[in-house]
C-alpha cells in the first residue's frame, strides 16, 4: 500500500446523498479477477449523462471527491474503492460513510474523511464557484484546507499511523502468529469445521 501523508488537488462536488456502492460501480463491472481496470465502471450509469459532474471539463483531473451523506452504503464490494482509485481519486470527503466501504477504503489507502454536513456544503460552494480551488487533505495534521479555511477532522491514531506508514494489515497480524496459535488451542472441539477430519 502507498503511504498517505498529505495530498493537494482539485475537488469534484458530488451533490448527492445515499450514493450506494451499486452506483459507484454496478454489479456487471465486478467480473474482473484483477485489482485494476475498474475505472470504466465508476458511476457508470450517471456518467452517460453529459451534464454529470465528472463529465464537466472544469473538473477533469480533480482527485478529491466531495459527496453527500451516506456515501458507500450497500454492498461490501471493495471494487468500489478500486474503481475510485483506478479513476484517480486520492480522497473522498463525506458527512457519513457506509461502514464496510470506509473500512475497505482505509485498508486500501483511499483516505475517507468525515466532515460535518455544513463544512461539506461550504466546500461544495467553494469548488462550484471556483473549480480551480486547491484542496489539501492533510492526514498528518488531520485537517482539510482550502483558500483560508481550515477544517479539522477525526481519524483514530492507529489507522492514521498505518496509512502514513503504508503498512499492510496482514504483515502486522502475522507478528502475533503465536498468540493466534495459543487461542486456537483453547477452542472447543465441537465448533464447526467445513472439512471432515479424513478430508
Amino acid at each position: 500500500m502507498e503511504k498517505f501523508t498529505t495530498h493537494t488537488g482539485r475537488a469534484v462536488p458530488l451533490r448527492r446523498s445515499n450514493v450506494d456502492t451499486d452506483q459507484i460501480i454496478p454489479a456487471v463491472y465486478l467480473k474482473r479477477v484483477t485489482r485494476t481496470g475498474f475505472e470504466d465502471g465508476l458511476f457508470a450509469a450517471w456518467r452517460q449523462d453529459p451534464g454529470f459532474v465528472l463529465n464537466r471539463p472544469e473538473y477533469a483531473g480533480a482527485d478529491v471527491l466531495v459527496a453527500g451523506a451516506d456515501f458507500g452504503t450497500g454492498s461490501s464490494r471493495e471494487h468500489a474503492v478500486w474503481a475510485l482509485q483506478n479513476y484517480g481519486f486520492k480522497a473522498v470527503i463525506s458527512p457519513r460513510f457506509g461502514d464496510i466501504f470506509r473500512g475497505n477504503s482505509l485498508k486500501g489507502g483511499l483516505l475517507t474523511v468525515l466532515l460535518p454536513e455544513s463544512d461539506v456544503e461550504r466546500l461544495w460552494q467553494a469548488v462550484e464557484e471556483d473549480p480551480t480551488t486547491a484542496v489539501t487533505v492533510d492526514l498528518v495534521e488531520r485537517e482539510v484546507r482550502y483558500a483560508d479555511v481550515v477544517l479539522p477532522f477525526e481519524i483514530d491514531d492507529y489507522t492514521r499511523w498505518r496509512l502514513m506508514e503504508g503498512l499492510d494489515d496482514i504483515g502486522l497480524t502475522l507478528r502475533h502468529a503465536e498468540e493466534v496459535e495459543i487461542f486456537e488451542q483453547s477452542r472447543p472441539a465441537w465448533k464447526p469445521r467445513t472439512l471432515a477430519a479424513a478430508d
Partner: protein
Amino acid sequence: MADKGRTLAEKIWQEHVVRSAEGEPDLLYIDLHLVHEVTSPQAFDGLRLAGRAVRRPDLTIATEDHNVPTVNIDQPIADIVSRTQVETLRKNCADFGIRLHRMGDASQGVVHVIGPQLGLTQPGTTIVCGDSHTSTHGAFGALAFGIGTSEVEHVLATQTLPQYRPKTMAITVNGTLPDGVTSKDIILALIAKIGTGGGQGYVIEYRGEAIRALSMEARMTICNMSIEAGARAGMIAPDETTFAYLKGRQHAPSGADWDAAVAYWRTLVTDDDATFDAEVVIDASDLTPFVTWGTNPGQGAPLGASVPDPSTIVDDAERASAERALEYMGLRPGTKLRDIEVNTVFLGSCTNGRIEDLRAAAAVLKGRKVADGVRVLVVPGSMAVKQQAESEGLHSVFVEAGAEWRSAGCSMCLGMNPDQLAPGERSASTSNRNFEGRQGKGGRTHLVSPLVAAATAVRGRLSAPSDLD
C-alpha cells in the same frame, strides 16, 4: 467491568479476542469464513504474491452464486467474463484446499442460504464473508458481518481480523404480528423508521415477543437486512427454535458434543443489567404489509399508502433524494401504491429465497394465474431448497400459475447473470436492495415480502393476498 452485565454481542466478542492492545483494534478470531466468486479472486492473488497459504481451510467454505445462470446449469456459463470468474474460484479452491460447492451440486446456493442449511452457522460463532448480507447468520446468535476483499485475504492468511469494538443497539419488537404480515414487513418498516444510516456503527440485537415468535427463516430475513439500516451486523439470541433448527444438520455437533454446545449456547443471552448504546422499540401489532417506493430501502411505506409528496419533506437532503427517486422510479406523488403496475416479480435471494418463503408464495398462487404480461421468476436460494420444494410439489404450483421455476443463485437480486430487468421495467422483488439499476440498468425495484410478491404476480399491481378474491 467484571460486575457489569454484558450484551450478547459483547459476550461473543470477548470470547474471540486473540489480542487486545491500547489504541489498536482488537484482533478477533474468525470461526467460519464463507467465500464466493466475486469478492475473492484478488484475495487469493494476494496470497500467491506473498507466498502465503490459507491458514485454516477447515474453517473456510466456498460456493458459486453471484454469477451463475439459473437455467441450463449443466452447460458452461455463456458469459465469458462470468465464466472466468467462476473458473478462477474453482482453481483457487483446488490450489488452496478449500471445499467448494459448484454449480449444480446438491449443496450449492447463495452463500447465506447454505451456511445455515449445512449447520455451519452456529450460535456464539464469528462468521465473515466478502458480502454485506453476512448479517443473515446473526439470526442464530452468531456475530456475523460482511468484509471487503482485503479483509478476505487477511482472514484467509490469518483466520483473524483486526476490528474495532462496535456499539450495540437493541431493537425490541413487541406484540404479535397480524395475519399476512411477515418478518420482511417488520424490517422494511423498521428501516423506513430509523433510516439507511440509522444503525451505522452498531451491531443490532433484535428482541421482544414478536421476534421470539419467528421461525429461523423469518429471523434470517430480518438479520439479513440489518445492513440496509446501515448496521454492521444484526443478531438474535439463540433459543429452542434455534436448537431445533440446527439439530441433526450435517455440520451441527452430535452426541455429547451437542449437549456441550447447547449448554454453552444457552448462556448466549444479553444479561438483564447490560446496557445498549441505543434502543428502538416498535410494536408488531401496528404493522401491515410494507413496500418500497424509492431507490433506497428506507424509502418505503405501508402498501395501503400512496407515493409520498417530496415537497412535504423538511430535510433538504432527504427531499432531494426523494425527488430523484421518484423521477428514476417513474412515479407521481399521490399515486396509490396498490395502483402501481409491475412487469416482473422476483421471488428469491438470501432475504427470501428459503423454503418457507416459497411455501408462503405457493399457498397464494395455488389455483391462481399470473396476470397477463407479467414475468415471474422463482429462484430458490439453494439447490437443497429447490429439491425440498420439488418434493413438496411447490414447483408445479408455480409452473401451473405461469411462473418460471429456476435453479439456485443470486439471480435477479443483483443481475450479474442474465436475469435482469430491462431499462424502465418495474419489479416487485423479495430481495433486499432497490438501488438504481440494481436488478439491471434502468430497472425499477419495489421491495416486498413473498406474500406481496405472489399477490402482485396475480393482480399485476402491488397487492397483498387479501386483495385477491
